[in-house]
């Protein structure tokens, strides 16, 4: 099992505790959003914006050693919670691991609706950008 898959499983177990309690699940997601470490203001540039139709995401990627480190922010708190999950799973891994990550946990924890193509949030584009940045930073 890869390290990324290990984290994915950990998150899946964490969300399984809520069972059918979607309110609890979303409250947890909102808490994750609130506790996401702040991105440096200098990284909140237009270049780093991933434009969703409604909420926006800022993503900064940099290489430290052979690992890629992501920091991010969003103006909507639920999107920010999703962003926090993605960072927890993908950040601080090698480009190869990031590119190969399947991210099936999003479906497993019942938050697949956030990957819908309604363009409402920038999450799908954010995952693409994380992988693209990993390719660029190899």
């Amino acid at each position, binding site marked *: 099992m890869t390290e990324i898959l290990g984290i994915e499983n950990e998150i899946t177990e964490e969300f399984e505790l809520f069972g059918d309690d*979607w*309110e609890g699940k*979303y*409250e947890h997601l*909102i808490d994750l959003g609130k506790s996401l470490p702040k991105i440096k203001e200098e990284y909140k540039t237009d270049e780093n914006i991933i434009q969703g*139709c*409604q*909420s926006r995401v800022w993503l900064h990627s940099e290489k430290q050693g052979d690992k890629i480190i992501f920091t991010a922010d969003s*103006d*909507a*708190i*639920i*999107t920010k919670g999703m962003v926090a999950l993605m960072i927890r799973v993908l950040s601080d891994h090698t480009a190869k691991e990031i590119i190969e990550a399947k991210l099936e946990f999003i479906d497993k924890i019942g938050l697949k609706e956030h990957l819908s193509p309604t363009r*409402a*949030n920038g999450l799908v584009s954010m995952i693409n950008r994380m992988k693209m940045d990993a390719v660029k930073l190899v």
Partner: protein
Amino acid sequence: MLLKEETHILDIESIRADFPILSRRINNYPLVYFDNGATTQKPKQVVDAISHYYSNTNSNIHRGVHTLSREATEAFETARKTIASHFNIKNDQQIIFTAGTTDSLNILSNGLTQSVLRPGDEIILSSYEHHSNILTWQLWAERNSGKLKVIPLKDDHSLDYSALENLITPKTKLISVAHVSNTLGLITDLDKIKTLAKKHNLIVVIDGAQSAPHMKVDLEKLDVDFFVCSAHKIYGPTGTGILYMSDKWLKQLPTTKPGGGTIKTVTFEKTEYAEGALRFEPGTPNIEGVIGFATAINYLNRFGIEKIHQYETELVNYAQDKLAEIPEVIVYGKSKEKAAVISFNVKDTHPFDVGTLLDKYGIAVRTGHHCTQPLMNLLCVPGTVRISFGIYNTKSEIDFFIEKLKKVITMLK
């Protein structure tokens, strides 16, 4: 959801029974559909009419000699008469079928560009226009060194009509405004607009996408050059709408979308175009859409649009009063003169979050800029949460929405 007898104006329970989709459950909650400004649900009468057309009458209209073609043509042209009569138009040829409000605005702006608009001319819009009523004029302005001028907002978000006359110059040719703001629900004072337009000889275009579903529109009385609206916001199908033009324009406006059906005679040297509505209806039209549209209009007229307006105004006032009791809620364009639409935000939250969580309770609202980004910039917000009502909504649904909104606010705190 109708928990108690709420009104005697309309029999909402039996109306709701006509809309099969309303019995759906979303995330284990009964659907509360408050996104009627985007599109309304369709009564089974409309669905049945479309199904009946395809099962019994389907054929191409206008030039066929066979029975089906005659029946289809008759159904299509009867629909035109129904819609003309609904808007109190005696000459049904003034009702041109289009793909919807956006298409209508494009057809008319292209026609005006080729006839009366000159380089350097000026057009007046309002601050709360939908992008549809901005982009086509903006494209004209960019290509013709034209200028768009905008009626500003007052502090209460209604239009500052006192500023309008100062916008008018000898180069002003046209004023195009929404009858009802799709974002704020505010009703535009067309009398003020028309008085100034008449004085300065301006062409008047009314975007009725958000007024036609909610209030009586008497086009004879309104007496404007153009009026446009969409069927799908009036309980009809998508992809259908109308472009009404005054008798003068019906004769004068050049066609910019030629095609089969728009002609009298064609040779490789010259084409003579048909007269009346057909001149603007190229290709095979959306026949089932038009038939569905007329069925929707007949359905509404069973109750009467005035009664519907009265009922929906009650809903708006009820919801606004309830929203006013929640300290975290900011309502934009608060007024009693509204057509079934309320825009609001919850302090320190993003509309996306509010909309996402309300959906979990089965409540469908719209969030975002509502295709009115210039208005969002004026209000200094990234977007709003918009609730918009239709004939089938109830005060019980508003109560449920308010209860869940309060819960959402607690979750987001």
